């Protein structure tokens, strides 16, 4: 080791602190790569999604068969089957459950390493989460949708704009879901352990995002209140309603616009909470 020169290890002049697109893309790729490491878990998860897809689909189709006119909440059986199977595919893409990275790192004190990087933590976590979503789209979205297509009649979109709107809506769902999860996890800054809020979130998001049943089955006033007053329908119900063309073209676009507003609000709120947390932050451990 002696005689070697360590002087090359000095700073390069002119480095800038602005987060660039390249940085964002590299972080996004890291999220993708991270989840791509666990292939067996991906296969097992996709299988579970398919099993529960059958369960949910038969329940909803039974509800449809017993409903007056056979259209509960304004969905026909084809729309309901599409709703269930695409919903099963989107479950992991949107990732409403199971993300505890931030709260775990706050509890262990590892969050200090996130703060020592020249990228704001919310930006870094958002990029990685989009990478996670992209990996989910390629691996977890396709199997349930294919399984559904094999065994049930699907609704094929009639409008040209439905597919691009659905793509935008899914991206917004991932971003909105990230904002919500970040906020729930960030409670650990104050509580030291976010398990309570996370359990509450798991219960609330499943019901109010339209996973267990379409929110259109609720009375109109309640559904509208949920849509306008909370980001939750934007996490799952909106992209699914867009895809199955539950509403006319204007409402279809309006729902995505509302979803975009909520996604921006949630990410902004996450950034504000993060800033506040940093002011009172006590990094755990020596």
């Amino acid at each position, binding site marked *: *080791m002696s005689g070697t020169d360590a002087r090359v290890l000095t700073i390069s002049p002119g480095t800038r*602190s602005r987060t660039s697109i390249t940085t964002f893309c590299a972080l996004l790729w890291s999220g993708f790569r991270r989840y791509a490491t666990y292939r067996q878990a991906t296969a097992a998860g996709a299988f579970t999604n398919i099993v529960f897809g059958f369960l949910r689909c038969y329940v909803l189709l039974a509800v449809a068969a017993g409903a007056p006119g056979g259209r509960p909440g304004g969905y026909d059986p084809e729309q309901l089957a599409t709703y269930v199977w695409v919903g099963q595919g989107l479950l992991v893409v949107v990732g409403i459950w199971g993300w505890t990275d931030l709260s775990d790192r706050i509890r262990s004190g590892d969050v*200090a390493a996130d703060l*020592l990087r*020249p990228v704001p933590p919310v930006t870094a976590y958002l990029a990685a989460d989009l990478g996670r979503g992209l990996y989910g789209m390629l691996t977890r979205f396709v199997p349930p949708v294919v399984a559904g297509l094999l065994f049930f009649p699907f609704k094929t979109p009639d409008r040209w704009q439905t597919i691009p709107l659905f793509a935008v809506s899914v991206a917004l769902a991932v971003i909105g879901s990230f904002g919500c999860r970040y906020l729930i996890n960030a409670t650990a800054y104050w509580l030291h352990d976010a398990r309570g809020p996370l359990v509450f979130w798991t219960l609330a998001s499943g019901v109010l995002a339209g996973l267990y049943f379409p929110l259109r089955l609720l009375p109109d006033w309640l559904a509208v209140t949920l849509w306008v007053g909370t980001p939750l329908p934007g996490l799952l119900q909106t992209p699914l309603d867009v895809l199955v063309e539950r509403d006319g073209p204007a409402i279809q676009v309006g729902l995505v616009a509302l979803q975009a507003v909520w996604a921006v609000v949630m990410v902004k709120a996450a950034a504000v909470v993060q800033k506040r947390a940093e002011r*009172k932050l006590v990094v755990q451990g020596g």
Partner: protein
Amino acid sequence: MIEMQDLRKDFTVRVKAGRLRREKRTVSAVDGVSLAIEQGEMVGYIGPNGAGKSTTLKMLTGVLSPSSGDVRVCGLEPVRQRTRLALQIGVVFGQRSQLWWDLPLGESFRLLRHVYRVPRDDHERRLVRCRELLGLDEFLHTPVRQLSLGQRMRGELTAALLHGPRVLFLDEPTIGLDVVSKQAVRSFLAELGRGGDVTLVLTTHDLADIERLCRRLVVIDHGRVVHDGTIDELHARYGSRRRLVVDLDTPLPAGFTLPGATLTGTEADGHRVTFTLDGIAAGAAVAGLVGAAAVRDLSVVEPDIEDVVAKLYTAPR
């Protein structure tokens, strides 16, 4: 490069004061620390557990807001300008990781190049140097979660240096490492220090790290600086002296005295004696002994820094 003026960090803790009652109490983790560290210095920052070492480091890196006082690192205010400062400093926490757990080490490094926006050539040059000095090649493609502690720490050091920081903060970088890994890390840091471009602040409980690497030693206890100077100055202050251990063929004559030295131990029926040298050179002491008794063997024992520091930690305040 680093300036701290009357830096304080107070925490409010709630202590039980009855069956249901809790009382708020303020604890000063760092209690008015003032220090200035110049470019290229290698400073050991030591203290007992809970003394405030890591808290100081967290304030210097912008992770923790000081309760009061001024702090500047590379001319920047750490908390307010944290993201700008992040480009100028490297941090290694011995007990936590900045690498991506699920990714191979090499991919973590590639990602860091983009995060810190390092030009490709600079990145490659630094990485090649680290690979060479720290022997990273054999585990560069192994996921971080599968690395041994020693391998991970070498990875952490590389990760902290790839963007070419001006200041390197090391919080117990050799904790839990085996002898070989410790030596590798120390040699690397010594080499880094020789360049003179990187300012290094090291907290550790392993005083061999300090002896090997740092000329300046800052000792903190109960949030206050209790020593700031060289290791020799610390020895002088606490009266630690070199010792001369002599094996004799025949015991010393009764009443023998050695000017400038004190007889502090006799073993093996007087065949082994220990003198503590009070200012006299070891050579002169040996010369004085040779005339009085037949010397078979001798050794000069340097004062033990661990003893001095233990004295410092346990000294009444």
